[in-house]
Every structure is written in structure tokens, then in C-alpha cells.
């Protein structure tokens, strides 16, 4: 009997030893994999999920995976691209645009020589047709927005189109949901009229094979990979005289974070999409493979996504309808600890909801004193004051209570995203330490949307605030998006927190007018300051941190990636602007061609 037990114990120990050694030996760096010709000419992008339907290529179909398939960057092209890193508005399928005097029309001059991949010419007819299609099919993605903003598109001649707007808007050319110019994600995409005019229902049309004007053709699509091959007959090669370096591009799903980290270490992929690698995993990859680099050489490594994170307060009901309670909660949040624990140091704290871009710095400088006097930094003593002033006192267990009722806000989060789970884990502990008996509810899937839009939370976060431009992020807090509690709000950050202050709205409206009048920056900053004075006093949401976009690039096969040292382009592989990462573009400022990525060693 004793023998049987010892064999049992020994074998258990052996297995445990195996597990440990496997964990430890794995730390030894793997040698570079055999670089066969094909791999050296291929660019591999790792995406976060398998593709639900690899037979669907209609970018307007609601279920189409716009951000992972790469179709918007490889096959489709846009009239203009916004390089948010340099601030350039890069003409591409079009050469120029101009507004009329009252900003109700935009005339776009198209580039001569642009061809669809099936040999047909790209003309103003395609633009007119695309907008007509959106008008006739309001169920298409972006149709709703587009139809509200654009009344009609007229063809002047083959290379000139006139957009007639429903109301004056000097920023129309920047709104990708209504105008075919892209900075983030993708947007209104011009489709070939000669193919789509015969389509019965554009909403269910599969668009197989997808025809675009871009430098690549879709070669094959499966659940795990969308593969593209370079075209020899791309119009840009003739017009610009450039050819993108990779002969093939794959957008592929290689598995969960660990698998992505392993394939990056083993040089099987060149860049993963956003949100896959945690900072800790990235640092381990760097140790194993020195050719992997992100935006900066040192911490925080990440580029800042234009969508800073904040915690939402439900202002439609007690207790968060009291600004003192909101400020008390906000003062209990130690944002440095969130950055250290939840983001493992790969971002910085934020005291407002705009990204840390140099172009926005004057605006931030102008409100430094407003921020300093506000409640968006960690300050437990201030929190005590706020809560006491709001009529709360600590009960026997050290929790804040009023009229015998504890301050027990319901904190909801999206349980499907690791980032949200990590951040809220830290916030819950911080609030409890500060005497707030927070209740935590991670929701997922279809349930979370309904609950958040209906405003069932007291606290919700972390929420991204996009697109990060001054006016657009100001507008998110506008009272025009207010709906009563219980009814679905337009969207999460679009006032699901039920904020309405006419004073603030007036400042936002004034900002739009000023932009239309091409007011100088000092005027804009002045209006911004007025708005922010109201905003920080009300504190409808509390800023947490900048959004880290930890997007490593592998320099083994490809060189010339953008970085903090050479910030020629946004380091983003999941937006339609990724096109320019491969082709490069003509600088608006210098007129010279900024080259795209190139094969390593060249």
C-alpha cells in the first residue's frame, strides 16, 4: 500500500516538475525562423477574432467586419486621408475640395487616371451612385448619418462632384460617416457603380469578389485569414510612381494573446492589432525578440489612441445627480495606480477627455488652472470634504452613508474586455478603501448595451471618448443627445450619462459657429475654456487615463515603421489609413513622397 502511494506522489511530482520546466525553459529565446522567400515578401497582421463570415465583403453590410478584415485599407481607397500624426489632409482619389461661401456645398475635384481593379474608370458617377444608394437604403451602415448631412451629390463632369449639404457645416470634410475621407477607422466608401447598379438589395449583397481601386486584390478569405496580393496594374503605380513593398498581406487570426505573443516572438507575424497584447506580454516579447519595437523605445511604449478613457456618472438619478458625490468619487480614484496595475505602466493618466497630441496642447495649457482647481486628481482629504458637504457621514464600518443609507453606487463594466476588467478591479478596491460600498456588475454581450443605453448604472467605465478632436469630443456632452432615463440613449459616450446644461451647450454651439467663421485659435481656445469651466464644475464623467494603443512592429522583415522618433504616420493597422503605411504618401507640406514601409536591410 505504501508503494502505491509513493508511486502516486512521485508521478505527481514529476508532472509538476514538467509543468515548471516547461514554464521556465520557455524563457530561452527562440532562434530566428527560416526566412523563406515567401515570408520575406509577406506582411502578416494578427487580428483579435476569427472572421465570422468569410464570404461577405460588403463594407456597408452591418455584419461585415470592417476593422479586422483589412478590406478598407487594402482594396478600398478614399478621396482623402487624415494623417493625425502630422495633421496633413492627404488628397488621394481626389486632388482638392472647396466649400462654397456659406458652407452648404463642397465641390471635389477627382484625380485623373484612377481605375477600378476590373479596369473601369473611377468617376463622379460612382460617387453620385453611392450616395443615392445610401439614400434608398437607410439600413446600410452610415446611411443614417450620411442622409442627415448630405442632401444630394451632383456630377459636374467625370472628374468633378458637388456635395449639397442639408445644413451649413465647415467640418463636413472631416466627418467620415458622411464624407469619403478617413482619419480613424473607415467611412463612406465609394462603390463601383457598374457593379452595384444591378444589385437588388445592397443590404444583403455580398460583393464577392470585392472590386476597389486599392493596390491589393483579395486573393482568399477563410475564417482565420483574409489574404491579399499586390496588383501590378494599380493606378497609383502609374500616377505616383510607387509600388507598395509587401507582395502579399495577410490579416490573420492566430489565437488568444499568448499565441499572438508567441507568433510575434517567432517572427511569424509583423504586427498585431490593437488590444491584443497586454503591456506585460509585450515586454516579454521584446525580451525574446529584440526586433520587436513599439511607438517608444522606453515605457510607456504605446502610442496614444485618440480615445482617452473616463468613468461615467449616471446623472439621471440619485446619488450621482449630486455633483459633490461625483467629485467625491472622482477624488478617490488614484489614476497613477490604475496605470501601474491595470495597464502595467503602458500609458499615462489623463485629467481630460482629449488625447495627448501636440496640436491640442495650446487648448490644454489654456485650462491648466481650471483643471488644477477641479476634482480629477487623487485626493482622499478632498473626497471627505465633498462627501461631508453632500450630507454624508461615515457609519460604524467606515462607509459613507446618508439618512441611514449607504452610498453604494452600482459600477457596471463590459466584462468581455480584459482592459475594462483590470481597470474596474482597481477602481472597486480604491472606492472601498475610501469608504464607498461599491457594487460591481460586469455585463457582457447583448445585455451590456441595453443596460448602459438605458442608464441603469451609477458608474460605468472605462469608456472611450472618440474621435479626440476638440469640437467632436466637446459635442459628445451636448444636451441635444439627452434622453430621459429608461429610454435608450444614442450611444455610450453620447450622453448615456444624461448630462444637460444649457450653459455648456451654448459654448459648444458657439464653437461650431466660430469654426465656420474660420476664427483664429485664440478665439477657439477662449470658447473651449468657457465650456471647460462649466464642464469641470459639473463633472459629468471623470477622466482616467490616455488610451494606450500598444501596437508593436516587427523589424525582422519590414523596416520604416512609424515611431516616436520618426512619426510620419499613425502606427495603426486596423484603420483604412493603413493603406498609406504601405504606399507612403505625398507630403502636403513639402510636396515630397514620404515612403511607406520597406523590406528590412534595404
Amino acid at each position, binding site marked *: 500500500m505504501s508503494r502505491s502511494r509513493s508511486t502516486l506522489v512521485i508521478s505527481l511530482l514529476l508532472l509538476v516538475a514538467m509543468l515548471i520546466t516547461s*514554464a521556465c525553459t520557455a524563457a530561452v529565446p527562440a532562434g530566428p525562423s527560416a526566412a523563406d522567400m515567401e515570408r520575406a515578401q509577406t506582411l502578416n497582421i494578427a487580428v483579435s477574432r476569427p472572421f465570422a463570415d468569410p464570404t461577405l465583403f460588403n463594407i456597408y453590410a452591418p455584419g461585415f467586419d470592417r476593422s479586422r478584415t483589412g478590406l478598407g485599407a487594402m482594396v478600398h481607397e478614399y478621396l482623402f486621408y487624415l494623417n493625425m500624426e502630422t495633421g496633413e489632409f492627404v488628397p488621394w482619389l481626389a486632388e482638392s475640395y472647396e466649400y462654397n461661401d456659406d458652407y452648404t456645398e463642397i465641390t471635389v475635384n477627382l484625380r485623373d487616371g484612377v481605375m477600378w481593379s476590373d479596369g473601369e474608370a473611377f468617376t463622379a458617377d460612382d460617387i453620385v451612385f453611392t450616395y443615392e444608394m445610401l439614400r434608398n437604403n437607410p439600413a446600410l451602415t452610415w446611411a443614417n448619418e450620411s442622409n442627415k448631412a448630405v442632401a444630394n451629390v451632383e456630377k459636374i463632369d467625370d472628374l468633378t462632384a458637388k456635395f449639397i449639404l442639408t445644413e451649413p457645416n465647415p467640418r463636413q470634410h472631416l466627418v467620415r460617416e458622411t464624407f469619403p475621407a478617413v482619419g480613424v477607422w473607415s467611412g463612406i466608401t465609394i462603390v463601383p457603380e457598374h457593379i452595384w447598379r444591378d444589385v437588388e438589395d445592397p443590404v444583403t449583397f455580398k460583393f464577392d469578389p470585392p472590386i476597389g481601386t486599392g493596390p491589393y486584390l483579395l486573393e482568399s478569405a477563410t475564417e482565420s485569414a483574409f489574404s491579399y496580393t499586390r496588383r501590378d496594374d494599380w493606378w497609383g503605380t502609374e500616377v505616383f510612381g510607387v509600388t507598395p513593398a509587401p507582395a502579399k498581406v495577410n490579416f490573420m487570426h492566430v489565437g488568444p494573446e499568448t499565441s499572438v505573443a508567441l507568433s510575434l516572438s517567432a517572427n511569424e507575424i509583423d504586427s498585431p492589432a490593437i488590444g491584443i497584447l497586454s503591456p506585460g506580454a509585450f515586454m516579454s516579447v521584446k525580451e525574446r525578440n529584440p526586433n520587436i519595437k513599439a511607438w517608444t523605445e522606453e515605457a510607456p511604449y504605446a502610442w496614444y489612441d485618440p480615445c482617452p478613457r473616463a468613468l461615467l456618472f449616471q446623472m439621471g438619478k440619485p446619488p450621482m445627480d449630486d455633483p459633490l458625490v461625483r467629485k467625491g468619487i472622482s477624488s478617490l480614484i488614484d489614476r497613477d495606480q490604475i496605470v501601474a496595475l491595470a495597464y502595467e505602466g503602458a500609458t499615462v493618466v489623463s485629467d481630460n477627455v482629449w488625447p495627448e497630441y501636440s496640436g491640442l496642447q495650446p487648448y490644454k495649457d489654456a485650462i491648466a488652472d481650471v483643471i488644477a482647481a477641479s476634482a480629477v486628481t487623487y485626493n482622499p482629504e478632498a473626497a471627505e470634504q465633498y462627501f461631508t458637504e453632500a450630507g454624508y457621514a461615515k457609519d460604524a464600518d467606515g462607509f459613507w452613508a446618508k439618512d441611514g443609507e449607504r452610498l453604494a453606487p452600482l459600477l457596471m463594466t463590459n466584462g468581455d474586455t480584459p482592459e475594462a476588467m483590470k481597470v474596474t478591479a482597481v477602481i472597486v*478596491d480604491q472606492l472601498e478603501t475610501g469608504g464607498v460600498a461599491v457594487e460591481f456588475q460586469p455585463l457582457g454581450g447583448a445585455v451590456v448595451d441595453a443596460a448602459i443605453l438605458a442608464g441603469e448604472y451609477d458608474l460605468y467605465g472605462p469608456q472611450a471618448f472618440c474621435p479626440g478632436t476638440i469640437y467632436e469630443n466637446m459635442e459628445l456632452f451636448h444636451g441635444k443627445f439627452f434622453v430621459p432615463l429608461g429610454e435608450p440613449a444614442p450611444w455610450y459616450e453620447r450622453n448615456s450619462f444624461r448630462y444637460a446644461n444649457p450653459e455648456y451647450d451654448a459654448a459648444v454651439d458657439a464653437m461650431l459657429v466660430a469654426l465656420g467663421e474660420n476664427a483664429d485659435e485664440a478665439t477657439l481656445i477662449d470658447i473651449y475654456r468657457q465650456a471647460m469651466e462649466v464642464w469641470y464644475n459639473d463633472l459629468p464623467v471623470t477622466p482616467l487615463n490616455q488610451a494606450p494603443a500598444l501596437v508593436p512592429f516587427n523589424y525582422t522583415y519590414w523596416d520604416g515603421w512609424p515611431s516616436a522618433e520618426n512619426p510620419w504616420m499613425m502606427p495603426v493597422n486596423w484603420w483604412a489609413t493603413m493603406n498609406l503605411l504601405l504606399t507612403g504618401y505625398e507630403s502636403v507640406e513639402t510636396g515630397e513622397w514620404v515612403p511607406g514601409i520597406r523590406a528590412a536591410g534595404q
Partner: protein
Amino acid sequence: MAVAPVQDAIVESRKGVLWELQRNRKFTIGGAIFLAMLLIALISGMMIDPDLRKSGSFPQRLPPGEGTLFGTTSLGQSVAIQLTEAIPNSVQVGLIAAAVGTILGALIGFVSGYFGGKVDNVLRILIDVFLSVPSLLFLILIAALLRGVGVTAMALIIGAFAWPSPARQVRAQVLSLKERGFVQVARLSGMNGMEIILIELMPHMFQWLGANFVNAFIAAVLAESGLSILGLGPSREMTLGMMIYWALNYSAIFQNLWWWWLAPVITLMALFLSLYLVHIGFDEVSNPRLRTEG
């Protein structure tokens, strides 16, 4: 009229079984390990300052020994302190779910198999419906309805979907047993259904129940960790599954933070192995033939 002697017999045999059990070394060692883990966790859990459970209480990513017993996590928590909470919670999930699943399953399987006919048909449809509709459907939807579950709710949900498989097995066993000679004899001698089940069939199923309980315990704890890894776990309480969830969320395997993910895994194995020893010991006692050969 037959009640008194039967009770006597049961009491007597129970005395015997207990006496035999405490003499069986596999049973005692397995039980001792299991109880020791549980008690150490419970007692030290009570002595620890609750504030030390919070994130950021310790430096991040410390290997074992450097200040803490089993190292720390990326969230700045002590792995050892997490274990003191996770072990009792996971054991609770296992015990509740296994009890619910085994008892419900045995009862339904018994009734279905023994009575046959219409009762059997109705119960069989019930069993088959529960067997064929994937429990993940219910688990996700119930978790959505409850908006996040605690340890007890989690245990009950797992248990509520753990009975069809044992029920089916019990039913098959009963079908086979009831055609055997001794049941036929009992029936001919005028015993009614319940008496036959209790007196003749139960002892035969007793061993099976013990085995199933251990298996159901293991399955329930694994189910809890599986659900936790999918993000459906009790997110405000620490269980062994939630420890693995957090370790994986911070890619502890890839980052070589072996103490973080290995601690819950080894604890799981130790729990299971000790229970398995208990189970083997129990088997040997109830089936003396095994002692000499098994």
C-alpha cells in the same frame, strides 16, 4: 413490520463502515490532506487583514519568497492570500454542485428506471432535453439575467445542469439491476417499489454514488474554472478559477510568472487527488475484494 430489523442492519453496517474507513490509510490520508488544505485556508483567511486582499497591497510580480510566501500578481496581490479565499470558495462550489447534481440525478434516474412506463417516458424526455440543450446556453443566459453571479449561485447553476448525465447512468444501471434475481425475488415476496429501491437497490448504487460525487465535485470545480476563464465567473469573489482567469488575463504563462498560474493549478490537482484517495479508500471499504488486489 420489516422496518425495525432493517434499521438495525443499517446502523450496524454504518458502524462497521466508519470503523473500517478510519482504518483505511488511503481514506485517512486523502481526507487529512483535503481537510488540512481547507482548514489552513479558512483559518489563515480569517486572520488576514481584509485590506491586504486589495489590489496594490504588495509590489507587483514578486517571485515566491521575496517578501511573500507564494509571490505576487501583476495587480499587486499576494498569491498566498488569494488562495486562502479561493480554496474555501472553490470547495464550496464543488460540494454544493456535486451534492445537487448527484442527488437529483440519482433520484430521477432511479425513479425513471425503476418505475418505467409513463413516468419513465416523461423523465426521459426531461433528461434528454437537459442533455441535448447545451448547458452553456443556460449558464450564459442565467449569468446575464442575474447580472453577475456569486459563488453560491454559480454552484447551484452548475449543479442544476450536472444531473442529467448521472440520471441517465443510474437509469441504465437500475434497468439492468432490476432484472437480476434478487430484485425479482423481492418483488415476488411482496415488497413494494420503494422498499425494493431502498433495501435492495440502494446498497448497490451506494458505491456508484460515492464515485459520482467525487467525479461531480471535480467536474464542478473544473466547470467553475472553465466558466471563469470565459469571463463568466464570480468576479467579486476569488476562486481557483478566477485566479486562473486573472493570471491568463495578464498572460502570466507567457510572461513566465509561473508562481501565479501554477499556484491555483497545483492547488486544484492537490484537492482532486486527495478526494480521489478518499474515493479509492471508500471503494476498498465498500468492496472488500479491492483491498487485497486493487
